[in-house]
């Protein structure tokens, strides 16, 4: 035990005494570890941004989009579609949170500045969790909203701006115009910066009979989204196509996976590329440590000889020189990881990466990146210390003392 303590103490003493040399030799390692850990953390954050943005449009892994149209008339009658979907859901016992519906329409909203058509998505409450939509203010749509005479809306900031409201503190409402206007309640605000107003509206409400008349009209037939386990996606696509085609005779049924399924591969490749670049930099940093280690071990030959006269064994001299390198690079790695954490935590990187939209699940600093950074620095130190250590061991004590 005291042997190990002695070796560590000796190594630390060398690092302490040769601060300037050690610092110079560690610049490369420090920068390499800083780059590796920071880029890994950023990569993770970028991956999260990609994932959330991908899921916002395509749904979570795995989301199956189902739609149908009649080749003769265009859209499938709404009641037939609803009945078909209901039968499908019942047959497979799909839970409510795994089934979402979506229909696009242009709603006529009466803003203080005049009536304006706004792209509106009529969605079921399960659409929000499926697309990882989290309002920055207020709440998302829920089942109880279907009982309300006033349709519930979740709008973006541009929509809110057209109403002249800064936030929801004044409980803003908006009239959905048309021949029979209905007063809608804004229950939540999302942070999308689309540059134009948009809204999510509960798929149905007690006031729909009149409100639907106020719409300019659906752009597309309603579609269904099913959230299923990734490994069952293909089977579900086939089953849904077959079953729904039978339930909706004469309609063309389309079912396909719409979540960004290749995203993980893309991100994995990106991370691999970043890691490879980091390793190259680390290798170059290691060469710097090795180079300075070689020069200084020759300068310290007398000292090594003196230590041998104290009773230092070859193994002890070897491990002390290697450890000196390891202690130094590990400290450089620690400093680099600390700086990396400070950078990633204190700069609004997620906002930069996501174009100002806050992440729903902002990842913390990846522990794996920190651990990898430290391990890489330590490994570089050990490798770079090997050659100087071998030279130190081969020094002849007598020659060293006379040196």
């Amino acid at each position, binding site marked *: 035990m005291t042997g190990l303590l002695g070796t560590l103490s000796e190594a630390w003493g060398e690092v302490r005494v040769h601060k300037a040399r050690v610092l110079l030799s560690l610049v490369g390692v420090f920068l390499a570890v800083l780059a590796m850990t920071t880029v890994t953390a950023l990569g993770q954050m970028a991956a999260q941004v990609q994932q959330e943005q991908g899921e916002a449009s395509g749904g979570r892994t795995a989301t199956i989009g189902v739609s149908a149209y009649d080749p003769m008339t265009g859209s499938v009658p709404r009641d037939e579609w609803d009945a078909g979907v209901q039968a499908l859901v019942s047959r497979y016992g799909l839970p409510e949170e795994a089934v979402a519906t979506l229909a696009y329409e242009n709603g006529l909203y009466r803003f203080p500045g005049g009536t304006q058509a706004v792209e509106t998505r009529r969605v079921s409450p399960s659409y929000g969790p499926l697309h990882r939509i989290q309002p920055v203010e207020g709440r998302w749509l829920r089942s109880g909203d279907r009982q309300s005479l006033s349709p519930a809306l979740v709008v973006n900031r541009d929509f809110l701006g057209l109403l002249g409201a800064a936030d929801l503190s004044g409980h803003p409402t908006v009239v959905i115009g048309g021949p029979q206007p209905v007063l809608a309640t804004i229950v939540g605000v999302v942070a999308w910066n689309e540059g134009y107003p948009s809204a999510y509206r509960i798929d149905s409400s007690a006031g729909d009979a009149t409100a639907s008349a106020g719409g300019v009209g659906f752009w597309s037939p309603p579609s269904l989204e099913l959230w299923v386990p990734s490994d069952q996606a293909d089977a579900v696509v086939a089953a849904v196509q077959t079953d729904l085609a039978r339930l909706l005779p004469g309609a063309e049924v389309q079912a396909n996976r719409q979540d960004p399924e290749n995203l993980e591969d893309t991100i994995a490749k990106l991370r691999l590329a970043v890691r490879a670049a980091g390793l190259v930099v680390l290798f170059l940093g290691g060469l710097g440590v090795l180079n300075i280690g070689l020069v200084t071990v020759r300068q310290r030959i007398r000292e090594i000889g003196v230590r041998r*006269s104290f009773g230092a064994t*070859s193994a002890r001299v070897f491990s002390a020189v290697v450890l000196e390198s390891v202690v130094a690079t590990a400290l450089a790695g620690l400093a680099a990881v600390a700086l990396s954490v400070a950078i990633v935590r204190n700069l609004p990187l997620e906002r930069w990466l996501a174009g100002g939209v806050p992440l729903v699940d902002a990842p913390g600093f990846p522990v794996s990146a920190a651990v990898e950074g430290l391990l890489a620095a330590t490994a570089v130190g050990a490798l770079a210390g090997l050659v100087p250590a071998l030279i130190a061991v081969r020094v002849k004590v007598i020659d060293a003392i006379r040196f």
Partner: protein
Amino acid sequence: MSLLELTGIGRDVRLPDGSLLPVLAGVDLSVEPGEHVSIVGRSGSGKSTLLNVLGLLDSPTAGTYLLDGQPTDSLGGRRRSRLRGETFGFVFQQFNLLPRRTAEENVAAPLLYARGREFLTRNRAARAMLDRVGLGPRALSVPEKLSGGEQQRVAIARALVRGPRVVLADEPTGALDVETGAAVMALLAEVTAENGAALVTITHDLSVAALAGRRFRLDHGRLTPVAAGGALAAATSDRTDA
């Protein structure tokens, strides 16, 4: 049984042309515990080689060397190093202090290779030994800030801090002026005797050699005893030869 016993020790070195040069030949020497022995000889006579052999820094090419009655030629590298650290303390002509370490760190350095309590209390032991050689107030000074005499006193403290049974001093006063050298040598002899360690000194200095209980002359690799009063003749001969 002698502490150190050399019988017929020879040491050859290979020259660049492949031939062998005998540096030591048929050296017989025994050193008893607590004894003070001095060896004089001209430059190139093999004094340092003999000291290196005695201190297990070098191995003889002929003869037997018994340490505490045990042959040293069969020692493995690890055991040899350990035995060296536990048995010998070295004082070099050029002090060989570790640069940029304080006097205390220098004196404590040999204890980095000790075990247990000896290792854990190394700084306290170093400070006590520095006090003993009169350098307590300079414990935190680095060698670059110490005079030659002070540096050699630090080296003496370092040689003795681990309680060696033998102190090997190679020209301990060679880099010092006469007065400082005498003071340092007196201190070395005194502290070594206090610790009960044997002292083997290699020197050119007649007065230094005279401090020893037994004196030897090394000439062309051969060691011969010098009778009391013969040191002057040996030293004179050395200077003439040189």
